[in-house]
């Protein structure tokens, strides 16, 4: 079977059009685990996407106040480069992905393509209302993140389509990410939370990982906090913060599995959300 190493998106989607059963390979950190376990055997062509310059790069659109990140940008680059500074929550999430070896190989687009509810970068993309650009031999389309992530390891990708890039708005305000696992390093999220406090828009976004079939937003909690927070200092009164945490927990839809219980996960996302909001106001004071 052929292994293709295209250097343009056009060449890649032509291979996908020619073989609808083709396997897309980016960093390999999800696919190869399945192959090594014998759970998956590529049977058609393999299309390796991480030599496509457009996918390996990112660009800042100053006019739109947005940054477009190529799907094959690695977590290591996000963690150590300017992307982690422009999007601190994404930088924090990147730092919790696997080990240095995994972050060197694993990509943001691969994380999104796998679409595990525990994908570390995904709550950040959801909280920032990312858009996802897809390409096929028929052309390109842009899909909001909430419509792209459909369920457990299910996405809106059509046959013959691939992820080209993810676009994130630059936020004037505060953003943070926190995750619970059994230890500090090399661990899959038992529960994760991203909080974005958009001062210019007076808008709160909260997204939760590992507590539902896909990443969940918390509209009630978001509206409640947007009304109670002091947008100058980002401080929140104690009882308002408690109510916010309760609403976040209520928005989760966790299950009990071999990693944790539904009860623990529901509790944990409330704690993480409250902790993040507290961190926001304490960092504001020190700035």
């Amino acid at each position: 079977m052929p292994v293709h190493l295209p250097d343009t998106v056009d060449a890649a989607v032509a291979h996908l059009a020619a073989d609808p059963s083709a396997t897309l390979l980016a960093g390999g950190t999800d696919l190869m685990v399945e192959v090594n376990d014998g759970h998956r055997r590529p049977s058609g062509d393999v299309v390796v996407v991480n030599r496509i310059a457009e996918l390996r790069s990112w660009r800042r659109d100053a006019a739109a106040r947005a940054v477009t990140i190529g799907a094959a940008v690695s977590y290591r680059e996000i963690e150590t480069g300017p992307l982690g500074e422009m999007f601190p929550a994404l930088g924090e999430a990147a730092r919790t992905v696997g080990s240095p070896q995994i972050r060197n190989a694993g990509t943001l687009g691969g994380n999104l393509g796998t679409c595990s509810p525990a994908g570390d970068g995904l709550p950040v993309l959801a909280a920032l209302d990312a858009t996802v650009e897809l390409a096929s031999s028929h052309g390109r389309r842009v899909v909001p993140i909430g419509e792209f992530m459909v369920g457990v390891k299910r996405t809106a990708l059509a046959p013959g389509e691939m992820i080209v890039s993810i676009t994130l708005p630059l936020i004037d305000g505060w953003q943070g990410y926190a995750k619970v696992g059994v230890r500090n390093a090399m661990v899959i999220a038992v529960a994760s939370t991203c909080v974005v406090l958009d001062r210019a828009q007076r808008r709160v976004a909260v997204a939760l990982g590992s507590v539902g079939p896909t990443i969940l937003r918390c509209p009630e909690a978001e509206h409640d906090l947007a009304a109670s927070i002091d947008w100058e200092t980002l401080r929140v009164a104690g009882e308002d913060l408690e109510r916010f945490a309760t609403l976040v927990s209520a928005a989760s839809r966790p299950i009990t599995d071999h990693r944790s219980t539904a009860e623990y996960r529901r509790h944990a996302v409330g704690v993480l959300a409250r902790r993040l909001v507290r961190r926001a106001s304490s960092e504001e004071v020190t700035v």
Partner: protein
Amino acid sequence: MSHDSDHYVLDVNGVRREVTDSWLGESLLDVLRDRLGLMGTKGACEQGECGSCSVMVDGVLVCSCLVMAASAVDQPIVTIEGIAPVGSPSDVQAAFVEAGAVQCGFCTPGLIMAVHDLLERDVMPSETEIREELAGNVCRCTGYGRIIEAVQRVAVERGRAQ
């Protein structure tokens, strides 16, 4: 660029190595060990958790078990065999021996690769940085204390040599 999944050429430690009869999806780890006879790279978890299969591909430290070998054509691959010739260990290898950082030795090749990579990027890492950077290399013998000591020794010696 396209090639057949069962016949391709890899650049391993500066040598052109032909790979034949490879199956589609075969990992770089298996190709290195089973087809090219390079047994220094170890395999244990085959899911990127243990780091014993760490190699450099295109200048980047990765788990070779998670690299599809056929996707690594035209990229320089460096394995533990490419770090130093047999009989004349690198400074990192020598420091591991001197510090007692080698016990059963199974994790050692992967750790040597990771430490060389770490010290290329950070000449004087703190203990916390060493622990974070080596989080992907599991050792079940040493408790890591002597490994960290070995890394610090190399950093100090390299600093002195400058």
